[in-house]
């Protein structure tokens, strides 16, 4: 309390300079708003406003044919939510989305760590190898999904040809159109969700470079000293990775897990282009697209989008809670 009082009493001795300072800051602040305003307008108009409108639409009855004369003042209803929550496809797609997200995020981070550790030490051609690893991530999604579809094609795709000729598969595997396959392991028939696994592997392939990129940057900035000291003290390479390198990577891995969870949960392109949501890969965003374009029900599509966003927010809340609790323990 007393400190603030003394501070307010001090200025009068040098009023002149203070006022000049304030006006410069004020002018900067005003200019800042001006410079920011185009961004704000665009983001408000194309991102925030549609979001809010979408939430409103989820409470209105709206068919695709009616959009020509849609207005904000249609009567509000909960029918869309009842319809979505009451359908078994929603719960199935939610479960599929969870499995797909969890599997992809774990695979992406695992592959990212593996690749980053492998190219950590300099070697000849490292620059090329690094660039090559980033290719799946930068290449257009439509092109890479088309390549994968062709490679996995049961009739002439190279994967099935190699599988049948070299690996002794009895028949081609319809990777993208088979919901459940049976693997014969030591006489046991194990049911496997073929198409879902395939799209998860695709996610791992396409997005491991993203994790790789961030982990590389972190590794490059890390000090060698703790590892060298550990080496002198007789730590094995595995120990030095497990107890020295990995703990330092954990903050980045946590960040990657959050980002990838958000993006994978909302992912549309990959699955739509690979399977079209068929064969047990009907994730929520594809389901929303179907509501919009096949059933032409704008309200239901909006309702499911809002529900999915809520689920994601709850998930992230839990995640932050776990992180905080962990932070307290460490």
């Amino acid at each position, binding site marked *: 309390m007393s400190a603030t009082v003394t501070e307010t009493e001090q200025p009068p001795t040098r009023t002149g300079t203070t006022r000049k300072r304030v006006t410069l800051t004020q002018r*900067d*602040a005003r*200019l*800042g*708003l*001006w*410079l*920011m305003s*185009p*961004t704000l307008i*665009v*983001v408000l108009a*194309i*991102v925030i406003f549609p*979001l809010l*409108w979408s939430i409103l*639409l989820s409470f209105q009855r709206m068919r695709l044919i009616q*959009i*020509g004369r849609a207005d904000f003042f249609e009567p509000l209803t909960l029918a869309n939510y009842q319809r979505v929550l009451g359908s078994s496809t929603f719960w199935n797609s939610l479960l599929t989305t969870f499995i797909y997200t969890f599997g992809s995020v774990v695979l992406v981070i695992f*592959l990212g760590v593996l690749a980053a*550790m492998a190219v950590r030490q300099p070697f000849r051609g490292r620059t090329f190898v690094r*660039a*090559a*690893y980033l*290719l799946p991530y*930068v*290449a*257009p*999604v*439509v092109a*890479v999904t*088309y*390549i*994968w*579809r062709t490679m996995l094609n049961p009739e*002439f795709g*190279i994967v099935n040809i190699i599988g049948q000729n070299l690996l002794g598969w009895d028949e081609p595997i319809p990777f993208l159109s088979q919901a459940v396959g049976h693997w014969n392991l030591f006489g046991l028939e194990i049911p496997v969700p073929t198409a879902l696994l395939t799209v998860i592997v695709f996610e791992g392939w396409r997005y491991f470079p993203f994790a790789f990129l961030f982990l590389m*940057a*972190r590794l*490059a900035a890390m000090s060698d000293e*703790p590892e060298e000291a*550990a080496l002198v*003290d*007789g*730590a094995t390479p595995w*120990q*030095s990775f497990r107890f*020295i390198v990995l*703990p*330092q990577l954990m*903050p980045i891995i946590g*960040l990657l897990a959050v980002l990838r969870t958000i993006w994978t949960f*909302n992912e549309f392109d990959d699955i739509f282009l690979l399977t079209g949501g068929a064969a047990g890969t009907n994730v929520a*965003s594809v389901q929303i697209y179907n509501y*919009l374009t096949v059933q032409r029900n704008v309200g239901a*599509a*909006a309702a499911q989008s809002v529900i999915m*966003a809520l689920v*994601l*927010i709850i998930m992230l809340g839990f995640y932050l809670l776990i992180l905080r609790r962990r932070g307290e323990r460490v």
Partner: protein
Amino acid sequence: MSAETVITPPSQVAAPPEPRRMAHGTRHRVQSRVFRIGRWVVIIGFLIATLVPFYYMLLLSVKPIESLLQNPAALWVKPSEFTLQTYVNVLSSTASGGQGFGRFLVNSGMVALASVALALLIGIPGAYAIARLPFIGRRYVSGVFLAAYLFPAILMAIPLFVGFTRLGLRGNLVGLIIVYTAQTVPVAIYMLRNYFETVPEAIEEAGLVDGLSRMGVLRQISLKLALPSIMSTGLFVFMIAWNEFLFALLFLVDRRERWTVSLGLSQLSGSVEVPTTVLMAGSVVLTLPIIIIFFATERLLTGGLTAGAEKG
């Protein structure tokens, strides 16, 4: 997420008493060897996984479809079968019996370039403001942008679909440009802000003292110093706009003459009439510009994206 908290464990673990070093000897040596060999296995394994699909694309794009169906196991193309007819077919217009990818290329190029120009025009002042100027709400801007990313793109797509239909912007490349600009501006601001923050404030203050206005400082000092990063941001926006699929699908699907390359490839790959090899040529046409840009500017791009990651 600070680095300091995690650096502590090593010192506890990495200090076993001296004598134990010898006891660990053999296990240590075996593990080192496994790691040394394993490392190369991993490096080559990843190389195969990342490069082979693109090689397969190139391979299929230069052989006739009959050759693929007769001998699908071939991992090379016989000189006698080598053909560029696939490219001629895919690029030439539908009127002359092709698939019209030439037109799609022009569309994609126009949309991507216009998005880059707009995103930079809007993003540069915004990024500078966030990096340097103390305006009201400065601290919350990034948070709001981030929150918007929590929602699926398709959620924004529904009202945009409705709104643009009414404004007559759907089925129009201009509508697509507006959406891409709005989607990439936050990314551009994120990247550019990092760079503006690295320009020493003292240089800018010297400019102010010498009588430049803030805008003068931005134009004559900060912009020039940040030019390489502006280029990399522009390239990044170009890649996002060039690769985008969902909004192109929603807005343009019933207007074939306005399709982008991505949309064209996805639409035609659903039909059985166009041979796989021709569409592979289309994939090459779609992918090549991105790969060229990427290899030419790899260092610039990756540095810009991970600028915050070193700090942990």
